Structure formats: structure tokens, C-alpha cells
């Protein structure tokens, strides 16, 4: 099942306009430090982190400020040198009040991160390696924000054959992974060396879409000099190629069974930025304290790729980019296909924030909706080969219990169906609402 055909892709999916031309060649800039930072304790999937600092405590840049709150949880580090102002609830991107550590930067500090000596990662046992990664605060930077170390736990009978590095960045507008690959290919390859060695992978494949030719070239050059076997797979441009199961299908022509993980077919998938951050941790002891994101969209004055300290308020990032045009009606955190709409600009950038996009009313979909004409375009779009039309119909009719017959649980909310629907039906949104209603109902049943 080696990758044979490089210009391959998965089946179905869609191809929205890419809109990457505005930022794809802009080098990563660092945003200046600001006065105050908001660090939610739950920036990842799983249990929230537990604070190890109190108000008024002084903190150094990169210092641990919250420890993992369980195994599926991760550490949190201070993005700045300064002091803790409070442990309090603040709103996150979803609009929920969540516990946060509030920091104030020290205006006089140099804000230099002091690297520590490289860790001899070859000597670490798997358990130590996993623990180390957890303490680095690493989470998936491809958007899911799943604590990375959990993926690295060896599992009985499921050896890792391939490490798959996800450089697809299939969402329109986003170019942050692209820039990371171009500018930090050495970090990516170093991370691959560490991870592939520790996981015992035979080979590593970096999946990159063909619209990032420069990244492919740079990575191929870097891969040639890598101490472990690395291949770069150029993939046809299509959304949602970056979804890990689609990526595996595109590269290896292997379907990860529904309800299973890539590990079940002998693979571990990580985003390029995650891999680079992993290298920084083992080489320099630099935890995850900032990330690269793309600010773009028609309502942004100066689109850019930025390296942003975690916890920076969105407003500050946008101000750095020259602010928003006055017709702005929608600001999205993440990509335009799966991101969350923001109701306030005071929410912070978190580990999973890959982009900040601003749109005017004219740019985002607000067309008339019609009833479904069963055109089948949503079926052709769905990478999971579901029947979105039927799911939406059942959801609309409130027949949530029948949705399982049509595998509602396999939906990844990629939004391809909604994008494709000529009748403007919010299909994935309907499925999402119905699925959470279903989950709620099940929880209630369990409780009773």
C-alpha cells in the first residue's frame, strides 16, 4: 500500500475558489506583544488544564502555568513574561464563558525565550516521550486541537507503519501551514525525524496539495537530506483533503473504517505545524506558546500570515492588520468551511486558531433558499459518501432517531454538502444541530 500515484486524491469532495493568492506568498510576521492575554484552560479536546499559578504570580515566557487535568489533557505555558492578573471566566470563540488565566505582559521585559539544552530524545522510553510531549502543551494545530501525545501512545497489536504529515491546508483563504512549510521546512523535517523514530514508522509521507508548489519543492529538498525516509505526496486540490481519513485515502488508497482511528490502519497523522512545534520542544525546550495563523478575507485591510502569541485578543491581531473595513458583517475564526463565527472581537487566539477571516455581507452566503430538488450534488460532494440530502430532510422533520440509519454519526461536518447545494440548504448545519440534540437525548437516557 505504498503511495504509487502522487497526483492522487480522495473521492468526492468539492473545490471552492481558493482565495489564497492574497497571502500565500507573504512571509510570516510576528505580531507585537500586547498588554493583556487571555488563556482559556480548555484550548484542546479533553479535560481542561489545571492552573499552577495564582493571581499576582510573576511568570516567564514559556513557563508552565497550568498542568494537564488528566491523560486526555495537556499543559499550558505562558506566552509572555509578565504577571497573572486573575483566574476568571471569559468568553471563548463559541460564545461560552470558560475559565481562563488572565495575564498582563511586563512592558519592560525583553520577552526573549531562553532555550534549554536539547533533550536526548533517542534515550527516552515511549512513556517518557509521551509524557514529555504532554508537558509541551502540544495539540493538533490542524484545527481539531486534539492533544497530540495521546496519538503517540503505543497500542498493543497496532504498530505504526506510516507517519502522515498533513500539509494539505484545503480550506480556502488559509495559508499558514503553507508558510510554515516554506519557511520552516527544516523544523518540519526535524520533527518528522524525531516522531518517526520514536513511533517506529517505516516511512513518512507529507501530503501537500498541488497549489503549494513552492512548499512541495522546499520540502522535497529537505526530505532528501532527512535521516529517515520521507516522501512528499503532491495531491490534487480538493476540499476536505486535509481531513485525516480523506488524506489517508488520497495517499494510500486505504479507507480507515468508520468509527476507527488512523492507528487502526497503522498510521499517525499530524499537521505540519504540530510537527514543527514538536521539534522546537525537543530541540530547544520551547513549548507551544504561539502559533502561525492567516488573517485574510475581503473585509481585512491588510491580509497577512502572522505568528501570534496564544491568548492575544482577536481585536489586537486585526488592529495589527490595519483593522476591518466598515462593511464587515462576519468575522470567522478558522477557515470559511468549518470555522466558527465570532460574536465578539475580545476572544483570544488559541492553539487551534488557524485563521481570522473577515467578510462583508456580500461575500458570505446569504442567498435565497429553496426546497431540495434532489439534484444529488450533496451526495457527490460528501467525502464520507453519506446521503446529506436525506439527513437534512430527517433533521428538518425532527426524525432524529432515523438519522442513524443513514449514518449521521459518520458526518465530519466538513460543510461540502452545504457548499454544493444549489437550493442553499444549510445541510451540515442541520445535521450538526440534530446530532447535538441526539447526543443530549442519549445523555439524558443514560442519566435516567
Amino acid at each position: 500500500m505504498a503511495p504509487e500515484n502522487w497526483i492522487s486524491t480522495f473521492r468526492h469532495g468539492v473545490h471552492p475558489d481558493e482565495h489564497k493568492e492574497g497571502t500565500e506568498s507573504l512571509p510570516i510576521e510576528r505580531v507585537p506583544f500586547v498588554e493583556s492575554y487571555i488563556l482559556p484552560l480548555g484550548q484542546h479536546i479533553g479535560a481542561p488544564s489545571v492552573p499552577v499559578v495564582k493571581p499576582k504570580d510573576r511568570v516567564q515566557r514559556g513557563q508552565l502555568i497550568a498542568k494537564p487535568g488528566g491523560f486526555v489533557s495537556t499543559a499550558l505555558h505562558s506566552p509572555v513574561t509578565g504577571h497573572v492578573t486573575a483566574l476568571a471566566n471569559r468568553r471563548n470563540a463559541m460564545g461560552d464563558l470558560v475559565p481562563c488565566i488572565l495575564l498582563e505582559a511586563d512592558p519592560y521585559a525583553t520577552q526573549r525565550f531562553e532555550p534549554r539544552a536539547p533533550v536526548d530524545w533517542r534515550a527516552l522510553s515511549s512513556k517518557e516521550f509521551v509524557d514529555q510531549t504532554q508537558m509541551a502543551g502540544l495539540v493538533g494545530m490542524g484545527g481539531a486541537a486534539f492533544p497530540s501525545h495521546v496519538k503517540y501512545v503505543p497500542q498493543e497489536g497496532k504498530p505504526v507503519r506510516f507517519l502522515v504529515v498533513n500539509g494539505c491546508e484545503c480550506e480556502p483563504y488559509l495559508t499558514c501551514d503553507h508558510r510554515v512549510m516554506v519557511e520552516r521546512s527544516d523544523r518540519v523535517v526535524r520533527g518528522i525525524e524525531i516522531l518517526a523514530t520514536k513511533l517506529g514508522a517505516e516511512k513518512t509521507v507529507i501530503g501537500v496539495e498541488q497549489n503549494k508548489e513552492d512548499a512541495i519543492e522546499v520540502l522535497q529538498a529537505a526530505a532528501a537530506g532527512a535521516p529517515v525516509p520521507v516522501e512528499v505526496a503532491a495531491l490534487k486540490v480538493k476540499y476536505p483533503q486535509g481531513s485525516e481519513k480523506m488524506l489517508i485515502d488520497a495517499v494510500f488508497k486505504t479507507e480507515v473504517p468508520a468509527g476507527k482511528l488512523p492507528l487502526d490502519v497503522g498510521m499517525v497523522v499530524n499537521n505540519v505545524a504540530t510537527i514543527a512545534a514538536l521539534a522546537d520542544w525537543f530541540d530547544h525546550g520551547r513549548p507551544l506558546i504561539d502559533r502561525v495563523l492567516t488573517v485574510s478575507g475581503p473585509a481585512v485591510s491588510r491580509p497577512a500570515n502572522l505568528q501570534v502569541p496564544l491568548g492575544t485578543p482577536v481585536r489586537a491581531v486585526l488592529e495589527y492588520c490595519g483593522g476591518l473595513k466598515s462593511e464587515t458583517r462576519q468575522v470567522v475564526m478558522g477557515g470559511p468551511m468549518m470555522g466558527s463565527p465570532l460574536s465578539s472581537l475580545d476572544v483570544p487566539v488559541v492553539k487551534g486558531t488557524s485563521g481570522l477571516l473577515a467578510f462583508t455581507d456580500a461575500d458570505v452566503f446569504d442567498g435565497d433558499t429553496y426546497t431540495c430538488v434532489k439534484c444529488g450534488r450533496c451526495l457527490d460532494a460528501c467525502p464520507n459518501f453519506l446521503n446529506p440530502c436525506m439527513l437534512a430532510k430527517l433533521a428538518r422533520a425532527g426524525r432524529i432517531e432515523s438519522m442513524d440509519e443513514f449514518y449521521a454519526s459518520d458526518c465530519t461536518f466538513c460543510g461540502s454538502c452545504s457548499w454544493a447545494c444549489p437550493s442553499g440548504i444549510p445541510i451540515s448545519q442541520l445535521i450538526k444541530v440534530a446530532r447535538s440534540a441526539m447526543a443530549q437525548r442519549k445523555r439524558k437516557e443514560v442519566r435516567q
Partner: protein
Amino acid sequence: MNNLAWIFISSLLVNNFTLAYFLGLCPFFGVSGRLVTAFRLGLANIFVMVITSLCAWALNTFVLVHAPYLRLISFIVVIASTVQFVEMVIKKLYPALFRALGIFLPLITTNCAILGLALFQTSRGYGLVEGLVFALGGGGGLTLALVLMAGLREDAELSDIPSMIRGTAMNLMIAGILSMAFMGFAGLFSSS
């Protein structure tokens, strides 16, 4: 087209029991809400029709030549009893089959498709084999209509049918359109 085949095609499609002769409308409208149920009901119907055809033939040949005036009463009583008896046998021998079909048997025995089958078979003077083919065609036709109807109704349930027509009126309209579509089979294998 030879006669047996014509009897079969005619009762299955051209003169479909339900859509052209209006026989068995009760199950057709009453039990066509769910596809699986409709299909099982259809199978049970075929089964009862075959028994009915046998009974009717036996009665016609051996009893009613002497007392034609007892036709109706004897049909209804004998068919009902035989079905009941067969039901008991199935229950003993094939419990699984019984669970799938059993609940429908009493319901079917009192519908007019069954009696209609016996009466038509008699009035057309069908013999044993012709009668059996007629029963298979008629039962098959009923099943076909039921299953099509059930599929359509399950889908229509998800539509925005206006409240003033939802229910029986809509089912009648669907049946009418189906019946119209079946007119396309007119004359199938009949001549030329």
C-alpha cells in the same frame, strides 16, 4: 400469449387487483405506512390467496354444483376456517414465519381481495391451475401496489404536504397517480 401467462400478467399488472379492481383497499391504505410491514402483508396476502383459490376450486367442483345458492356463505366460512387452520399449522411448524406473517392473517381473511378472488375465479370458470395462477398474479399485484405505495408514503412523509390534504386524501391522490401509471400496461400480451 398463452392463457396462463395472460391470466398472470393481467391480474398482476393490467387489471391489478388494487389499482384497477379496487380490491383490498383496506390493507392498501391501512398498512402501507411502512415499507417492511407492507411487504410482509403482501406476502401474507399471496399466501392466503393461494389457499383461497384452492378452497374455492374445491368448493366449486365438489359442493356448489349442487347448491349454488350457498356460494357466498360457504366461501367465507370455509376460507376463514382454512386460513385459521393453516395459521395454526404454521405456528407449530415454522414459528419464525408465523411471527413475520401471522399477525396479518386474520386481517387479510376478511378483506375483499380474498373473497373477490374466489368470486372472480368462479365467475370466469377457472380450473385448478388457472385459479392458482390467478391467485399468484392477484396476490403479486396487491403486493406490488402495496410496496410501491409504502415507499411513496414513506418519502411523502418527509415532504411539506399541506395540512388540508395530508392523510387519506393524499393517499388517494397517490393511489390515483399510481393507478394512472398502471394504465400503461393496458393491453399487455393480450393481442396483436
